[in-house]
């Protein structure tokens, strides 16, 4: 709550009476309210904020000393963890030298303000992004992607203000389109959501975004974020669409969803709260048509669930992100499928019969939803999991193997796109990366 208060521009304290979670559950004993009523009265009458008025200032430099470089490095990490600035894994101390090096990837002045990170309201600048990227082991050529992702994250349309603090374990998913993906070695193929020493960009950028969510946004487990589980939050999800494998006539995601011209570098940010591998391929002697259609049904079946968190994006967001490998996309296209026809199929076959929806209590959640479109959807039987087929995100990504697809279940009020702005020296940065990391 103090984060939320600070995010409104108020001093981060507020007159609150806090109780254990038990009292907020159905059928609870609420007699502690009576026992502690003087605290409510105090909050209304004598409480005073401990903070005075203040404007944003300079973040101070910190100093650690050690008997050796190894010792100083360990002490710096201990200091960061003690201040709750990390994710528990080793961090690069964001020294002046390292942050200045990262800022070589900035297309804008280091002091440019991008907004305030919710819910705590930490002032977010290009330099803040560089500091987080330095801590996350990043490189300067990653900075343009991180800055675009942060801009999208801070856009009110993304819903980040609520999702940062919510219990539903939302994590940002950033889809990168355009030549920058290959340029910075962002994985679009085998293991694109996991660790990859040859293509580490996604891990660093995603980790930096998470560090900003915590360090500036205050999203610490059980304090600033009430996420029950917090899955996929070490690195969030950052990957590139495998545009080289897009079938002829299939537009990149950034073009389809946001209207960016093909060939431009862009990001698209949505939130998800689950990740499921789907064995898409058939097991026996299916014809290509049978294999494709059975796979489509199987994917739709994974989507036909009462994901009440997904209501947040019922009208304009997304029910989720479906990833299919390039080899599958090529096969589907050969059989006449398009991204649009696949979305239409998934929308139609993921609908939930009304009796099943009511049995699971889903109708009550829909009745109280803020979206009129969502509330009115209750009249539909079977109930579509999203207002429009166009809301499904379908991207071509993943290793060149036909067996699996991947479903990132949505918890996303909006899907926000941003063009990526590059510094004039960007090609030089890629040359330096080749020198440091070897040939792509």
């Amino acid at each position, binding site marked *: 709550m103090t984060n*939320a208060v*600070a995010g409104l521009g*108020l*001093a981060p304290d*507020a*007159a609150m009476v806090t109780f254990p*979670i038990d*009292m*907020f*559950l159905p059928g*609870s004993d*609420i007699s502690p*309210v*009576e026992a502690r*009523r003087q605290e*409510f*009265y105090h909050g*209304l*009458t*004598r*409480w005073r*904020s401990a*903070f005075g008025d*203040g*404007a*944003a*200032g*300079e*973040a*101070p*430099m*910190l*100093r*650690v*000393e*050690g*008997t050796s*470089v190894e010792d*100083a*490095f360990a002490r*710096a990490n201990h200091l*960061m963890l003690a201040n709750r*600035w990390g994710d528990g894994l080793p961090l690069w*101390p*964001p*020294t*002046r030298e390292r*942050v200045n090096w990262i800022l070589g990837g900035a297309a804008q002045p280091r002091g440019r303000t991008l907004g*305030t*990170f919710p819910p705590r*309201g930490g*002032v977010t*600048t290009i330099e*803040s992004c560089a*500091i*987080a990227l330095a*801590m996350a082991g990043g490189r300067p050529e990653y900075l343009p992607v991180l800055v675009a992702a942060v801009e999208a994250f801070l856009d009110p349309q993304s819903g980040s203000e609520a999702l940062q603090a919510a219990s539903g374990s939302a994590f940002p998913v950033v889809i990168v389109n355009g030549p920058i993906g290959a340029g910075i070695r962002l994985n679009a193929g085998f293991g694109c959501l996991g660790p990859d020493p040859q293509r580490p960009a996604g891990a660093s950028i995603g980790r930096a975004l998470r*560090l900003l969510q915590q*360090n500036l946004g205050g999203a610490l487990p059980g304090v600033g974020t*009430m996420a029950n589980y917090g899955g996929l939050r070490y690195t969030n999800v950052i990957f590139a669409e495998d545009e080289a494998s897009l079938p002829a006539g299939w537009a990149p995601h950034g073009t389809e969803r946001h209207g960016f011209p093909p060939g431009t570098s862009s990001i698209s940010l949505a939130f998800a709260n689950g990740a499921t591998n789907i064995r898409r391929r058939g097991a026996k002697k299916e014809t290509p048509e049978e294999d494709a259609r059975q796979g489509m049904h199987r994917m739709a079946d994974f989507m036909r669930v009462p994901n009440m968190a997904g209501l947040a994006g019922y009208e304009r967001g997304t029910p989720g992100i479906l990833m299919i490998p390039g080899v599958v996309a090529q096969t589907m296209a050969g059989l006449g499928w398009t991204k649009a026809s696949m979305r239409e199929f998934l929308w139609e076959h993921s609908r939930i019969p009304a009796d099943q929806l009511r049995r699971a209590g889903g109708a009550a959640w829909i009745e109280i939803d803020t979206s009129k479109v969502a509330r009115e959807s209750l009249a539909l039987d079977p109930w579509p999991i999203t207002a429009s087929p166009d809301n499904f995100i379908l991207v071509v990504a993943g290793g060149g193997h036909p067996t699996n697809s991947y479903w990132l279940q949505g918890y996303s009020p909006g899907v926000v796109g941003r063009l990526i702005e590059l510094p004039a020296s960007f090609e030089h940065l890629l040359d330096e990366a080749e020198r440091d990391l070897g040939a792509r």
Partner: protein
Amino acid sequence: MAVIEFHDPSGTIEVTQRHAPRVGALAGKRIGFVSNEQWQAYRMLPLLKTLLEADFPGIEVLPIDAFPQGNAVIGSEETAALVKASGVDAVIIGNAA
């Protein structure tokens, strides 16, 4: 001796508005509730209303539903305008979990 100097990554926070002033005493005051209707607010806030009315002579505590309820509406400018127009001296906002 090795020294590492590095940036504080927590940035800065800008305070742009003040908390509402407190009322000196509750007797004779007009108090409202702004409820998100979640987390047992429908039980806790009426209990608070009863307690306030019992403890402070002349206090007027508006009904729980005097203002729009629910997460979707309580943060709106429209709700704020209604609260202001009602002439309350203070409001209690609940419930968060």
